[in-house]
C-alpha cells in the first residue's frame, strides 16, 4: 500500500508529507505547552473528522449525529474504568462495540426503511439527542452533574491506563490519526472503497450493477462509528470529565464534521488540513477578541469564516491547495 502511494505521488507531495510528518513527530520538543495543547486538539479533530469523512466522503451517507459515537465510546470506557477498574486498553474494545452497535442500529433502521439524505441526517441527530437525554437521567453515569475520571500520578506516563502528561496524549492521538489515515487510504483504493464510491456517486446505478447497497452502507457506518468511538475513549481520558449536556449535542457533531467539510469531503488529507486550519483559527480569534470584553464577537467571526469557505471554496480547501502547491503527479493530472 505504502509503495503504491509513493508510486502515485509527485516528488513534491512526498517531500511535503515527509516534512509535515517529521515536524509532527518532534513537535513536543519544539513547542511550548500552549501550542502543544492546540496541536492535541487539532489532531483529535483530524482523527474524528477522518472517521466521519469515511461515511459521507467515501460512502455518501450524511451523519449529523457523530457526537453519539464519541460520547458512547467516552462514557463506556470511562464508566468501566471508574466503576470496575478496567483499563482503557481493554475498555476501548467495549467502547468500539457500543459505538458500532449504535451505528449499526441507526444504519439498519435508516437503510432498511430507505430513509435518505436530509432525513437520514435528521435520524442521526434524533438518536444522538435522544441518547443524551437518557444519559442525562442515569445517575449511575453521573447524570447531568457529569462523570469524572480520577486525576492522579501526572508525573509518570501510564500508557495502558491512559494516565499521564500531555505529551503522552499527543503521541497517542498522533498515532491514532496516522493509523486512521493509513486505514482510510487503504480502504479507499480497496474493492470495498470502490463499492462505496459507486454508491456515493449514484446509488441506483450502483444497485443496478449489482453492488449490495445495504451491506456496504452498513460496513461504512460500522467502521466510521467504531473509529469515532475510539476517539471518544481518548477524549474521556484526556479531558477527564463528561457532561451529557455538551457531549451528545448537535453542536458537538458539527465540530466533528467541520474540519472535514472545510478541508474537503471525500479526500484523505481534507480532514487533517481542515483541523489544522480551523482549530488555530479559533485560537487566533480568541486571542484577537480577548480585549473586547464582548460576548459573541469570536463566534460571529468564526461563523463568518465558515460561511465564507462554504460560499467560496465549496469543494473544501484541500483540492485548492493541492493545485496551488502543484502536488499533482506529472503524468496523470487527476487524482
Amino acid at each position: 500500500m505504502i509503495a503504491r502511494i509513493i508510486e502515485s505521488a509527485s516528488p513534491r507531495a512526498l517531500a511535503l508529507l515527509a516534512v509535515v510528518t517529521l515536524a509532527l513527530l518532534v513537535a513536543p520538543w519544539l513547542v511550548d505547552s500552549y501550542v502543544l495543547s492546540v496541536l492535541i486538539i487539532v489532531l483529535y479533530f483530524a482523527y474524528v473528522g477522518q472517521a466521519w469523512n469515511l461515511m459521507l466522503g467515501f460512502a455518501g451517507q450524511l451523519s449529523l449525529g457523530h457526537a453519539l459515537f464519541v460520547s458512547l465510546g467516552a462514557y463506556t470506557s470511562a464508566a468501566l474504568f471508574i466503576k470496575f477498574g478496567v483499563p482503557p486498553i481493554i475498555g476501548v474494545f467495549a467502547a468500539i462495540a457500543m459505538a458500532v452497535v449504535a451505528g449499526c442500529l441507526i444504519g439498519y433502521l435508516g437503510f432498511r426503511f430507505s430513509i435518505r439524505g436530509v432525513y437520514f441526517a435528521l435520524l442521526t441527530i434524533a438518536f444522538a439527542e435522544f441518547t443524551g437525554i437518557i444519559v442525562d437521567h442515569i445517575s449511575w453515569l453521573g447524570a447531568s452533574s457529569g462523570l469524572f475520571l480520577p486525576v492522579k500520578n501526572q508525573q509518570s506516563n501510564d500508557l495502558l491506563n491512559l494516565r499521564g502528561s500531555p505529551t503522552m496524549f499527543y503521541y497517542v492521538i498522533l498515532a491514532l490519526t496516522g493509523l486512521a489515515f493509513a486505514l482510510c487510504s487503504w480502504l479507499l483504493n480497496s474493492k470495498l472503497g470502490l463499492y462505496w464510491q459507486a454508491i456515493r456517486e449514484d446509488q441506483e446505478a450502483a444497485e443496478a450493477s449489482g453492488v449490495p447497497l445495504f451491506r456496504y452502507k452498513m460496513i461504512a457506518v460500522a467502521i466510521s462509528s467504531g473509529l469515532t468511538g475510539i476517539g471518544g475513549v481518548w477524549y474521556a481520558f484526556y479531558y477527564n470529565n463528561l457532561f451529557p449536556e455538551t457531549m451528545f449535542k448537535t453542536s458537538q457533531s458539527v465540530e466533528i464534521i467541520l474540519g472535514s467539510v472545510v478541508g474537503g469531503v471525500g479526500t484523505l488529507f481534507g480532514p487533517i488540513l481542515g483541523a489544522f486550519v480551523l482549530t488555530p483559527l479559533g485560537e487566533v480569534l480568541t486571542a484577537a477578541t480577548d480585549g473586547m470584553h464582548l460576548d459573541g464577537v469570536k463566534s460571529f467571526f468564526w461563523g463568518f469564516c465558515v460561511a465564507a469557505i462554504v460560499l467560496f471554496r465549496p469543494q473544501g480547501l484541500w483540492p485548492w491547495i493541492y493545485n496551488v502547491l502543484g502536488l499533482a503527479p506529472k503524468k496523470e493530472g487527476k487524482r
Partner: protein
Amino acid sequence: MSGGLYLNVAVSGLLTGLIYGLSALGLSVIFGVIRIVNFAHGEMMVLGMFATLVLFRALGIDPLLSLPLVAAALFAFGYLLQDLVVRRVAHLADHMQFLLMASIAVMLISVCLMLFGPDAQNAQVSYGFDSFAIGPLLVDKVRVYAGAAALVVSGLLFAFFHYTPTGKAIRACGDNYTGALVVGLNVRRLYALTFGIGTACLGAAGAIMLLLVDVHPYLGPSYTLLAFIIVIIGGMGSLPGALLGGILIGVSEALAGVILQPSLKSAFSFGLLILVLLVRPQGLLGKVAR
C-alpha cells in the same frame, strides 16, 4: 391527580402547540419549495423574539400588536438572505447547505449575544397573570391570545398559498422546478419570497412566543430541533401537517411533563420522531417522497 389537571395541561399544551405549529410552518414552507433545510430556524425565531422585546421595552408595544412589524422585518431579512446568500448554495450537497445554515445560526446567536447579553429576559404584559375559567378549565389569558394569534396567522398563510396567484406560483415552483421555469415564472424572485414568508412565520411565532417564555440567545437550537420533529411528524412540505404536528407535540410534551418528568419531555418527542421516521417517513400528512 385528577382528570381536570390533565385536561388543563392538555389544553395549555394544545395552545402552545399552535405556536410550535406556526413556527414549523416556516420551516416546512422553505423546505417544501426551495428544498433547503433551514438549520438556523430557531435562531431566526429568537431574533424575532428579541425584536419584539425591543419594541415592547422601548415603545411599550404589546407583543401581539408588534407581530406584523416583526414579521415584516423578518420577511425582509429572509428575502435578502435567500437572494444574496442561500441561492448560491442551491446546487451544493446537503452537508454544505447544512453548514452554511449552521454558520448563519452561529452568527445570529452571536449578534443576539452582543446586543442583548446572555441573560434570560421577558416582556411582562399587564394581563400576564389573568386567566379564563370555563367550567373546570382554567386557561391563561396569554396562552389563549397566543394560540388564537398563531391560528390567525396560519389561516392567512393557507389562504395566501391557495387563493392568490403568487401563492399558487410558489406552490408550482415547489412541485416542479423545471416546469415553473418553462411557463415563465420568475423562480428566483419567488424563491426569495418563499424564504421571506418562511422567516416571517418565524417572526410572528417569535413575537407570540415571547408572551409565554423568557428569551435568551441560546434558546435557538432547541426550537430548531423541535421544529424538525414537528415537520417530520406532520410531513415535510405539508402545511396542515406542520400545524397538526405542532399540536401533537405541544399536547404530548405537556402531558409527558406531568406524567413523567419535565426534563424527559423532549426525549419523548425524539422517540416519537424516530418512530414516525421508521413507520411513515413521509410524515402523517406528507406526500410520498419523490
